[in-house]
């Protein structure tokens, strides 16, 4: 049970299971043949087919705008929520508030999607770009709140306290001290929010309207008709973008983390000597 060979086997099998389907998908996006079981040679045909598919490109553009807007809104709201949860020990309805932050993380999407749609209909709002954006903001802000909260709970509060003791106004303290310190978490939260928005089919399907077809809705309707290498091509591009983003984010986080530890160390030495 404790042997390293057992562990290595488990990990190899586990990661093979996680990655082989994705790798196959990527490989077949370069397949000249339309059939998934026949390798017809290397080809970029499906990428050009995808590029000239106007419906797909329009959907990609809608998704990008919804993603950027809802991730940004969700990050602002989620960061505020994280501050409220970690910095204000007591306020009326704090329990209910933390419940509202955790519940959307596990809530089945069909429920969230349907209930929001009924709200929009009851309010007499036309469904479209903005309703999808609001829906995405609402569920992504909770993920951002969790990510930022964990950072706020672990960082050294003495810097914040020092600024306040020296008479720095709290809002200025937040922007000069707190925000730079939690910034990697805020960026990570934004990226998570963006990919979640990019990924969402169910909530978007309920809340979308004419002219606001997102990429997952488009992909879903084509997938129902069967596997097409064109979809493989767009999926490969999405996977590539996300992988690059995650690697870039983890590198910058690592670098800022090293700098932050060094700065905190210097600051600590400055205060003691």
């Amino acid at each position, binding site marked *: *049970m404790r042997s*390293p060979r*057992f*562990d*290595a086997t488990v*990990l190899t099998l*586990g990661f093979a*299971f*996680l990655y082989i*389907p*994705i790798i196959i*998908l990527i490989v077949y996006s370069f397949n000249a043949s339309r059939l*998934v079981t026949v390798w017809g040679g290397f080809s970029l045909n499906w990428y050009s087919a995808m590029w000239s598919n106007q419906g797909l490109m329009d959907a990609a553009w809608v998704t990008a705008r919804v993603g950027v807007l809802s991730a940004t809104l969700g990050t602002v*709201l989620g960061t505020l*929520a994280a501050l409220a949860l970690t*910095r*204000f*020990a*007591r*306020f009326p*309805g704090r329990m209910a508030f*933390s419940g*509202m932050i955790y519940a*959307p*993380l*596990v*809530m*089945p*999407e*069909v*429920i969230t999607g*349907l*209930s929001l749609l*009924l*709200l929009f209909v*009851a309010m007499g709002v036309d469904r479209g770009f903005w309703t999808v954006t609001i829906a995405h*903001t*609402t569920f992504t*802000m909770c993920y951002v709140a969790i990510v930022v909260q964990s950072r706020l709970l672990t960082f050294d509060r003495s810097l914040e306290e020092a600024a*306040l003791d020296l008479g720095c*106004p*709290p809002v200025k*303290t937040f922007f000069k001290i707190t925000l730079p310190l939690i910034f990697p978490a805020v960026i990570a939260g934004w990226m998570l929010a963006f990919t979640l928005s*990019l*990924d969402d*089919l*169910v909530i978007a*399907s309920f809340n979308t309207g004419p002219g606001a077809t997102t990429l*997952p809705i488009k*992909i879903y309707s084509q*997938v*129902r008709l069967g*596997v097409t290498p064109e979809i493989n091509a767009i*999926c490969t591009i*999405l*996977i590539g973008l*996300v*992988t690059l983003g*995650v690697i870039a984010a*983890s590198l910058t986080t690592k670098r800022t983390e090293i700098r932050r530890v060094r700065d905190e160390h210097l600051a600590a030495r400055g205060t003691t000597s």
Partner: protein
Amino acid sequence: MANVVAEANPATGTGGPSWTRWLVVAVPYIWLILFFVAPFLIILKISFSDTAISIPPYTPLFQGFGAIGDFFSQLDFENYIFLTEDPLYIWSYLSSLRIAAISTLLLLLIGYPMALAMARAPTSIRPTLVMLVILPFWTSFLIRVYAWIGILKPDGLLTLLLQTIGLMGPDQQVQIFRTDYAVFIGIVYSYLPFMVLPLYAALEKMDHSLLEAASDLGCPPWKAFWKITFPLSLPGVIAGSMICFIPITGEFVIPDLLGGADTLMIGKTLWTEFFGNRDWPLASAVAVILLIMLVIPIMIFQNQQKKVA
């Protein structure tokens, strides 16, 4: 609302003019009440209304303040009674719970050894392993389910592989696609990172001197596992199981794309009711009952999260 400010302790709060502190709490609070809590009240109200052939397809929600008084006298249980009368819905709920329970068990059986192996790996490679688990989670859910269609369909890659290595004759095909087995594969594949990460977080924190002490005292490894490792990882087991079980119960994409016509899941039923039959009140009633079924798991999950935070 003024006591939001008064309550804050200057030693622990960020301090500041009352309105900024008020805003920090109020803005996300009001947003969530408006777009997360209010919709549930509306869905509850609509589940009690009649279907009308109009757009929006339900009888008007709000007819002035007098209507509030009439609300309770007008409660219409028609949709709920319909749900209990048609076995399709009862079977959908039961089948969703069954599929979610079996999937969660499978996820635990696969995820636990992975998380354990990760926690026992050298410290230097652990961040890379965590990254490798997270990366598929960042790639689209839909794409990952789609990838399995090409593998599992009768003329897909699995058939090709089995025919090539001779386990299957050239005229035979794998009959997994559009069955419950394909749904289980899709669910386990999609939710594995959600199971591994909480388990890893719990196992990584574990004090290894406990296991050394047990082995020094002559405790066999498998017994030490059940007496020490597993009980200590229980918070991770509960968190991971809830994070998987709750959304799987309402899953739509996986049973729709990989499951067969006889794969009953309530997320799919709700979707058909809404988009196919355009019966909004009935879809709302389906959602309300699903939510009631999930209240207890959701509360277990929230308690667990509060303990961790």
